[in-house]
């Protein structure tokens, strides 16, 4: 396959950046998207130009590091697939592919296609810890979890924190990410002691990071490589309302404000 790549190049956080066009020859349909970029970078090494910087780590679709806006879709056109698991057979010979970084104020571009997602880390840190015994392992099934609850919790816990939800959202909202992280603990017995405190702290941190608000467009759900559903957002909303209006909302919210 021969492809034309329109790639965002930006030397550093302060650089204005712009698109550059590259020709990719001899692209095999069996290559992953990142392997295709590797080959393009090999060619660039032979010239005076810097290789294209992009984030990647496991290349198995489980770490959440790769993050490319491909043809206007986070992680490209394939449903429930990370960029590293996207293969060139999803494209056609002669295609022009636009590759951009995630765009959000809370995800500043560091270089080319690499963005700083530490705002996500700060939301996770705000959530704090769960009270769990850290000594010897307790008996299996000592804490009973209903099957349907554990399924829902595991579905939410599948979030790999890649940021595709923010990238896809017309509001630049991090609600799907935050909801997945809040809900997977809120559904389990181990998450109950800090349930109210956690949802308050994480939503406040999310708001402090300059993400937008949620209008339930549903773009996040469509873009999520791990198929996290917007029902998690609805669960988190309920938890936040309960935490603020009924539980220890006053004290916690005041402490945070």
């Amino acid at each position, binding site marked *: 396959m021969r492809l034309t790549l329109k790639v965002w190049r930006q030397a550093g956080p302060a650089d204005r950046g712009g698109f550059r066009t590259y020709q990719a020859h001899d692209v095999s349909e069996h290559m992953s998207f990142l392997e295709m970029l590797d080959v393009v970078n090999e060619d660039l090494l032979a010239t005076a130009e810097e290789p294209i910087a992009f984030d990647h780590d496991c290349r198995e679709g489980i770490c959440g590091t790769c993050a490319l806006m491909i043809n206007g879709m986070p992680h490209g056109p394939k449903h429930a697939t990370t960029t590293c698991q996207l293969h060139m057979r999803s494209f056609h010979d002669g295609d022009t592919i636009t590759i951009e970084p995630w765009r959000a104020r809370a995800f500043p571009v560091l270089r080319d296609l690499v963005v700083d997602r530490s705002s996500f880390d700060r939301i996770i840190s705000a959530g704090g810890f769960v009270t769990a015994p850290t000594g010897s392992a307790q008996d299996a099934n000592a804490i009973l979890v209903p099957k349907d609850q554990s399924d829902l919790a595991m579905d939410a816990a599948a979030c790999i924190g890649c940021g595709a939800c923010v990238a896809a959202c017309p*509001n*630049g*909202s991090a609600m799907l990410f935050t909801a997945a992280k809040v809900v997977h603990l809120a559904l389990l017995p181990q998450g109950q002691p800090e349930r109210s405190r956690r949802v308050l702290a994480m939503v406040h941190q999310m708001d402090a990071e300059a*993400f*937008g*608000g949620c209008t339930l467009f549903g773009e996040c759900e*469509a873009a999520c490589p791990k198929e996290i559903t917007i029902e998690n957002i609805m669960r988190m*909303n309920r938890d936040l309302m309960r935490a603020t209006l009924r539980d220890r909302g006053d004290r916690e919210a005041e402490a945070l404000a």
Partner: protein
Amino acid sequence: MKRLFALWATTVGKKVAMAVTGIVMILFLVSHMISNVLIFKNPAHLDSYAAWLRSLGPALWIARVGLLGAVVVHIVAAYQLTMRARRARPIAYDRHEKQVTTYAARTMRWGGVLLLVFIVFHLLHFTTGTLHPDFHPGEAGRNVIEGMQVTPVAIFYLVSMLALGLHFSHGIWASFGTLGFHNPAYNQWRRLLAWGVAILVAGGFATIPAAAILGYLK
């Protein structure tokens, strides 16, 4: 009260406020629509309905202040969240392919602005009579029929009702989610309910300008 302000301080809380005030306005509009279509039975019915509303005295003013409060809260929250969303993505994508965003969801903000313009016009048209060509206080049925004979005005009413229907179809569906209802057994009915209420209310209102344009309302 302190707890409500704590909720309002979050982006989620502002959406909750929009959902609750939206439901208040929807309930008002349902009753408004039902009373409006009485005009097809006999314009005098509208007059007696208007007279009954005025006879409520203080209760009418409580309702008016409550509705105005709902409108103000709804708009303030929408404005703050819109500005926040704009700030959240300072550099736009060269290419952004929306996958599932509906036309209704995409037009919530500008549709809302259109509805605000419509509400102001509508109050000046039929409540104060300022923009009415021949306003007779107390004769609601006659005022509506006369006011709707001006075709551009009737068309503006129709377009506004289209915007209202779209606004409802996303707003009603989304308010369930914002308020935390997510039972999988009912989720499929939420869209249906949203569109059902949207078509019923906006369509009910639209029958009056439509009838005027087609010459059935004279």
